Structures are given as C-alpha cells and as structure tokens.
C-alpha cells in the first residue's frame, strides 16, 4: 500500500449523516417546524405593522383635523366679526355721518383701536367712485366701476376679496358692505384689512412644527406664507378637492418633490379662502419608522433563533433515530446471523453424525479385509488388495476430518471464553471456502509465525469475524487472485491477523465509510452491516480492526486481538 491510501482505525469512525435518507429527514425536520413557527410570526408582524401604521395615521389625521377645524372656526369668526362691525357702521349711521373724511377717519381710528388690522376705509357711491377715503394712501376719487368686486358687492351686499398687493404694496384683502338708501340708490363701505389678521389666526394654532398651515384662494394663489410651498401670492400646484363646502377633507397625497403627505382642506365660508394643513409623513412617522425597524430586527432575531433551535434539535433527533435504527438493524442482523449459524450448525452436526457411522463401518470393513489378507494364507494379487485397502482407509480418514470439522463448527455457537488456537480457527474458516477458492483458482497463502500462542477469546465470535473478512476478500478477488493471511505477534500482548487480497480494492472516498452501518459497495446484495458488526465484535473482544485499500490493487484488513482478555 502506498501513502495515497487511507488508513482508518475502526475506533475513530462513527457513522454520521452520510446517508441521503437521514439527510432528507433532517432537512424536513428543519423546514417544517421553521415554517410552522415563522408563518404565524410573519403574519403577526405584518398585522402589527399595519395596525401601528393605521394608529399613527389616525392620530395624524385627528391632529390635522383638530387643528384645521379650530383654525377654521377662529378665522371665520375673525372675518365675520369684521364684517359685522362694518355692517353695523353702515346701518347705524347715515350716509351723511360718513360723508366726511374727518368722521370717516375717526371711525377708522376706532376700528384700528378695536381690531388693529384695519388699514383704510372708503365710501364708494353707486357710480363706483370712492367719494370719501380715510387711510394712509391717496386713493380718493378712484373709480371702481369696472372691477368685478364692485359688481359682486352691489349684487350680494357683502364681499370678501382675495389677498392682493394693489396700490398699497403689501398683502391685504378687502371687506365690502353695500347699503341701500331710501331713494333706491346704494353706497358701499369698503375696508382694507392687513393679512396679519390671517397669519395671526393661523400662527396662533400652529404649535406643531411638523404641520404647515396656510391659506390659498380658489385659484391656487397663496394667501399667507407657507413653510414649504412658498410666500404670499405665489401660485402653487395643489389638487384641491372639489365640493369642499362646509366640510373638512383630509386626504393623503404623494407629491413628486415632497414625498408622502397628509393634507387637510377646509373652506372658510363667505370668503375665497381655503385653509390647508399639510403634514409630511417622514416627519410624522419618524417614531413609527423606528418602531418598524425594531419589529424587523425582532423578526430577524426570532428567525435566527428558531432556525438555530430547530436545526440543533433536528440534528439531535436524527442522530438518535439513526442510532436506534442502527441498533435495531444490527440486532435483527445478529439474530438472523445467529439463527443461520445455529441452523447451519445443527444441520452440519446431523449430517456429520449420519456420515460418521457408515464411515466407521467402512473403516472397520477395510480393516477386516486387511486382517484377512494379512493373517490368512497368501493369494494372488494380495499386495494389490492391501494397497486398495490402504487407499480406502486414507480416504475414510479424509472424510472423517471433514465431518469432524462440521461437528466442531456446529458446536461452537455458544458464547464462552476459551483458549483458542488462531491457526486452527483460520483453517476451519478457510475450509468453508476451500472449494470456491479451488474452483476460481485462488491461491491462499497462510503465513504463520513460529510459536504462535493461543489466545483467550470467544471462538464463535472470532469465527464470525474471520468468516466475514475472508468472505469479503473472496468476493473482491477475481480469477487467479491471491489471498495472503499473516499471523504474527506484533508485541507480547497481541496477536495480529492480516488478511490481504489483490482484488478490486475500494475507492478512496468509500474506504472511510467502510465500517459505518448500512454502508455497502455491493449495491442491493449487501446489507451494509457485515463490516459494521465485524468491527463491533472485534471491539467487544478488546481488539482493533483497520483497513487500507487502493482501487484496483487490493485491500488489507488487519485485526489485532489481545492474547489475554481483560474485562
């Protein structure tokens, strides 16, 4: 054997997981519980995810809705309050009272004192001429006849304008009241109000920094500054829900440049204003996002935990299963073997016995012929007769040796400890195969060191070991093969039996598995237990078995047995 071959001692190898059946079982044992545990966990995680998301959404919607309705109410109130005051002024005083710049100025002063955000005040006649004006600008005698608001106020009696710059160079809006006179004519009381009013109503409530609140008009022009959308009078592109009426509408919008938003819309009655509250999801859901990543981490950790637990557990179960399968198979095999051997033993004993008696008779008859020829008178061809008798006697002797071996074999089935002559034991085993060996022209060389000691062991068990090993060697050998059996003492305490064949050999990848249960290179014809049991027996007898093999060159089994059995 060269150094390429592997040398494995029997005691170092334990059969583990090399069999596809157990591998499949193990994979199943991992996958099924893993999925069974994981699927509900995933479902729970997904449900939890959406529940949390919805809870956050509801909370956000509530916050926006709350802010929106509060702001709307106070804005509506502020505008209504100013309109009511103007209306009161228009009704409570005659046109004459107001048709005086000084008096109008005094009224404006009163209004400013009360409200602060009135900028100027004007009286416009039904021809659209601003006949009287009180305020910081020189706007007297301007004609508003062709402006749309003039028509609207003359028709509806009241008007609130969009925010605009106009002549005054700062954002403001207008509230106008039409007053009918007895003569069927009318005049208009027109007040300009600083948009600070709108801002203050919004800022007052804009406590949540994540929420951007602002006002636009129906044409999408910003009426107050917005944190995210732009400054006053910028036009923005927002989808305003139709049919706002008196309701607040909250909806989610995805804006291409700003991401997911929750937007709330509320219309301020009797005005062109629409109040908008917008909330960016990324800000609002920050807490939820951390929660979400916590859930994901928890899920991953659980998966890992389940996987590790399940795979360790399945490894344990499969190895236990394999162990018990092996044990059971070995027991069954042993029972079968023992039965077979016992039957064989009984059969050979009875055959041997039946043959022994006629053999004894033949022997004695031949002896008698010999006596007659020897003691009686001479007769022709006496020498020839004596020669024939001799040949009969020696043939009988040969038969008797065979029958004695058969008897001996049958008797050796019981477990017991005795002194065993390994040489005769090996010879007995070889006798069982001798005709096969002769038939296939296999040369058997038995090389025995002089002074081989007897060993203390179990004859039946040793027979099983060597019967199996020699049987294997014969199966591996081809015609004209050579089987060498060497018997020697490697040291004073051991006997070594080396069984070498120059047969087909064993593949390098197979040789390491050779003592594993169920491993067989003989395909369907072998149980894969022979060498496994052989190894068990050798170890039980206190010995060691090892193998070296090379494909195409042959195999060598070495069995070392103690001379004296130490329990």
């Amino acid at each position, binding site marked *: 054997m060269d150094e390429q071959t592997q040398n494995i001692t029997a005691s170092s190898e334990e059969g583990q997981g090399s069999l596809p059946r157990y591998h499949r079982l193990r994979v199943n044992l991992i996958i099924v519980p893993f999925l069974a545990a994981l699927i509900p966990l995933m479902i729970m995680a997904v449900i939890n995810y959406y529940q949390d998301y919805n809870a956050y959404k509801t909370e956000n919607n509530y916050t926006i809705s709350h802010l929106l309705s509060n702001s709307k109410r106070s804005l509506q109130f502020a505008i209504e309050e100013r309109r009511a005051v103007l209306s009161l002024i228009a009704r409570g005083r005659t046109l004459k009272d107001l048709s005086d710049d000084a008096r109008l100025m005094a009224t404006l002063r009163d209004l400013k004192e009360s409200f602060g955000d009135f900028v100027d005040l004007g009286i416009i006649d039904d021809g659209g001429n601003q006949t009287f004006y009180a305020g910081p600008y020189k706007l007297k005698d301007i004609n508003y006849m062709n402006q749309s608001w003039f028509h609207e106020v003359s028709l509806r009696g009241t008007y609130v304008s969009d925010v605009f710059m106009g002549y005054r160079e700062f954002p403001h809006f207008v509230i106008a009241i039409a007053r009918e006179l007895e003569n069927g004519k009318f005049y208009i009381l027109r007040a300009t109000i600083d948009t600070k009013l709108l801002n203050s109503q919004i800022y007052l409530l804009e406590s949540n920094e994540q929420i951007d609140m602002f006002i636009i008009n129906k044409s999408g022009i910003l009426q107050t500054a917005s944190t995210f959308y732009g400054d006053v009078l910028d036009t923005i592109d927002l989808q305003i829900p139709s049919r706002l009426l008196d309701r607040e509408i909250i909806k989610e919008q995805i804006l291409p440049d700003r991401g997911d938003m929750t937007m709330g819309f509320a219309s301020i009655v009797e005005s062109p204003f629409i109040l908008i509250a917008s909330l960016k999801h990324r800000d609002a859901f920050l807490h939820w996002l951390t929660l979400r990543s916590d859930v994901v981490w928890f899920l991953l950790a659980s998966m890992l935990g389940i996987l590790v637990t399940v795979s360790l557990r399945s490894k344990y179960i499969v190895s236990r299963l394999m162990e018990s399968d092996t044990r059971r198979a070995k027991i069954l095999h042993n029972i079968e073997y023992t039965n077979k051997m016992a039957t064989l033993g009984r059969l050979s*004993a009875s055959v*041997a*016995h039946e043959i*022994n*008696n006629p*053999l*004894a*008779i033949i*022997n*004695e*008859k031949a*002896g*008698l012929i010999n*006596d*007659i020829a020897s*003691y009686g008178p001479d007769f022709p061809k006496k020498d020839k007769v004596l020669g024939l008798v001799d040949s009969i006697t020696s043939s009988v002797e040969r038969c*008797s040796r065979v*029958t*004695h071996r058969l*008897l*001996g074999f*049958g*008797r050796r089935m*019981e477990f017991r400890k005795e002194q065993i002559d390994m040489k005769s034991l090996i010879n007995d085993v070889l006798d069982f195969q001798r005709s096969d060996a002769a038939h296939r022209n296999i040369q058997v060389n038995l090389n025995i060191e002089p002074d081989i000691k007897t060993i203390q062991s179990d004859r039946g068990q040793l027979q099983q070991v060597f019967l199996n090993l020699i049987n294997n060697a014969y199966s591996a050998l081809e015609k004209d093969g050579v089987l060498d059996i060497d018997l020697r003492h490697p040291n004073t305490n051991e006997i070594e039996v080396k069984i070498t064949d120059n047969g087909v050999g064993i593949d390098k990848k197979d040789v390491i598995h050779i003592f594993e249960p169920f491993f067989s290179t003989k395909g369907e014809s072998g149980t894969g237990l022979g060498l496994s049991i052989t190894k068990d027996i050798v170890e039980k007898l206190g010995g060691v078995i090892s193998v070296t093999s090379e494909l195409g060159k042959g195999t060598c089994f070495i069995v070392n047995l103690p001379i004296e059995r130490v329990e």
Partner: protein
Amino acid sequence: MNSFHVLFVDDEEELVSTLVERLEYRGIIADYAVNGNQAQEKLKREKYNVMVVDLKLPGLSGEELVHIVNKTHPNLPVLMITGHGSGKDGSFEKPDGVFELLQKPIDLSVLIKKMEEAIEANEPG
C-alpha cells in the same frame, strides 16, 4: 497378555460384528450385544473379562447399563465409547464405574491396549 473374553455393546451391528471378527484375528475372544437387555442376558450366560459399551444405545442407555452391570458384576471392568459430538459440547465427562472413556473413531490397537490395561488394573494382586 493372555487371550481374554470381551463383550461389545453397540447397536451398530455391522460395525460391531466386524470389530469382533478383527479382534478374533488377534486372538481375542469377542462377543457383542446390540442393546442393554441382550448384554445383560449374555453376561448371565457367559463370563467376560471386559465390557466395551457405546454411550448411545436404543432403550437402556449406555450409562444406565453401566450402572446396572457395576452392581451385578462388580469385578467386570467397563470401557465406554462416545461418538464425536455427543454430549452437550463434546466434552463428555467420564461417568462413575467406567475405566476409560474412548472417543470414536477408535484405532484398533489403541482399543486392545486399553482393554488390556483395564483387565490388568482389575485383577487382584
């Protein structure tokens, strides 16, 4: 050693008759019985110097026969023959009242020698 008279008890008549004939060539007067009862009959009628009994006998077993004969003929030495493989594990213990246990197959010269020894050992003085 003078000629002596021996009784064989063996159910294998072919074998035992041949044996008797061969012994006669050697000057030994031999007789045989094929079972225990026949042996007892013969012992009543004739005087024998030695008896050789097969362990396995039909009816009365070899051991039982030896037991009886030891009582009726206390001075008759007995040799016993066992077949190979008889007994529990082939190592059959020599029963009481048996001079020597012989294993089959028996070499004729060994048998004669053992019979002579048995007679010698049994002779007084």
